[in-house]
């Protein structure tokens, strides 16, 4: 169920990218940002939230366990 909802959320955001409802509207939000640009700025924020959802609810823990054995490794980082 959770997986289906996540797939649905991804598909919905992809569809929302095609915002034909603002296609011909030059209305400036706050008097400065054209609505078409503002919408897609908000879309970027929504994409970030979606990624947060994916990381939280669909993270491939099995890969992490198989490779790292479930424990953090030591060693120096670059």
């Amino acid at each position: 169920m959770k997986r289906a909802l996540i797939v649905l959320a991804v598909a919905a955001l992809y569809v929302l990218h095609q915002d034909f409802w603002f296609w011909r509207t030059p209305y400036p939000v706050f008097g400065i940002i054209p609505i078409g640009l503002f919408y897609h700025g908000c879309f970027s924020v929504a994409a970030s939230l979606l990624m947060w959802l994916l990381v939280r609810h669909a993270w491939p823990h099995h890969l992490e366990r198989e490779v790292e054995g479930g424990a953090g490794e030591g060693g120096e980082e670059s």
Partner: protein
Amino acid sequence: MIPALVVFVYLAVVVYIGVFAFRRSKGQGAEDFFLANRSLGTFVFLLSLFGTNMTAVAILGSSGHAFTNGIVTYGLMASSSGLVIPLTIFLIGTRVWALGKRYGFITPVQIFRDRWECSHIGTVIFAVQAVLLVPYIIIGIMGGGTTLSAISGGFVPFWLGGAVVAAVVMSYVFFGGMRGTAWVNTFQTLLFLVFGIIAIGVIGAGMGGFRGAVESLGSAPATSWLLTRERISPYYFFSYTFIPLSAIAFPHILIFCLTAKRMVQFKKTVIFYPLCILLIWSPCVFLGVMANRVTDVPEIRAKQEARRTLATQGARMEPAQRDDLRERASGDDIILLLLQRYAPLWLAGILGAGIMAAVMASDSQILALSTMFTEDVFAFYGGRRRFGESAQVQTGRIFVIILTVLAYFVALRAPETIFEIAIQYAFSGFAALSPLMIAALFWRGSTKWGALASTVWVALAVTAVAVFQQTYPAPAPGPPAVVWSAGGTELLARTSSGTSIYGFMPVVPMVLVSAFLMFAVSKLTAKPSAATVEKYFPQRD
């Protein structure tokens, strides 16, 4: 000249970072040089992976495209990338990282060879990837030439600017390998994140605020469309969502995915990626659109005039005349002209360094090609066995020099704008190669013959688009020149910016046919051994 000097200081810092990384390397092993020993931490991994994807297209190309086409640029290229790229890194990048960690893979072709039990087919994939990657490298050198020339007010000619950038990139890649490249990319990403915010403030103040500019753009019929998408077809807009699929098929991105120390480092990368895109692209696009209200900069006025002439008289002109006007109307240097006009000299220099940071992102592509050549060809065909690992690293370094020099000479002769080259060849081609990695990781039934069919299709399709566009010159802006139609339906047309197939950009049929061929040919051909399939798709409790 002061801004150019600031940029030269910046270039010296970048070279020093490369040399410093060279000193930090813990040996001469291939994994250390090509993958920084798979040891990148969260901060460096996020910023360098993002920086690797931000080439000249991000700042010069985006503002230039927005200058000509309006706000649509952000929706076309940035917001779709902000969704598709982190999604593919999440789904594919993490799996590639896990395979690399378990089995020691360094390049995508090594994964393909192992997954599909093939050898020479892997070499074919390498060759197609390499040919498609070179234009991306050329973009960086062209961007460097354009930037240095513009920042110095023409004192540094294009050919010299490109040569300086090529030499600097070559130096830190040569010495620092992946560690140097990642550190430089991190430094550069920080610079151009800061750059966007400062540029908006300085140029906005110089123009007396943006509110008046937006109002006058919106009220004039000749410019009001720049604030909407009314001149862009929804099919064209939709087509662009296929382009970001290229990111995860780019070898330099996949190779970068192998450098993370731990898998957890992907988490912040995918979450912050769309926000980084927002921070960098929105100022560039906005400023590119606002440049249409600038009337007191002769170079910008000349561009506006060239565009007007192209629109009103282009249909009656010879193709060569149209190309010349397109070149003159191109906005690739628009953001630099705005800085020259509105920023104080010292600040223009610092901001110019920020732009240089973006255009120099070709370093990862150069390193990736070097990695691929030494691993997929030199080592695979016995070079490492005969000459040793140290010779392999030296071969990689020599390859870096040869490649950079070749790319530089091509950049001097390339006539098209930065943006067009990137989109038409490299991005579309790699997007159409994305079904390979998806099939390798997620479909047990995929085979090497399916992979070969997809790869050959991509090579043929890219060639066909290039030949078509050379054969049929671009028409003037406006309705496309229909080349082939059936029953009143436009099937194939030449547009002012490229090619249209049934109203879509070529990338759409390229990706769909590539995926179909992978599926259909795999269904008809023998699968890899059960042991190999089990290795990639183990039964989990």
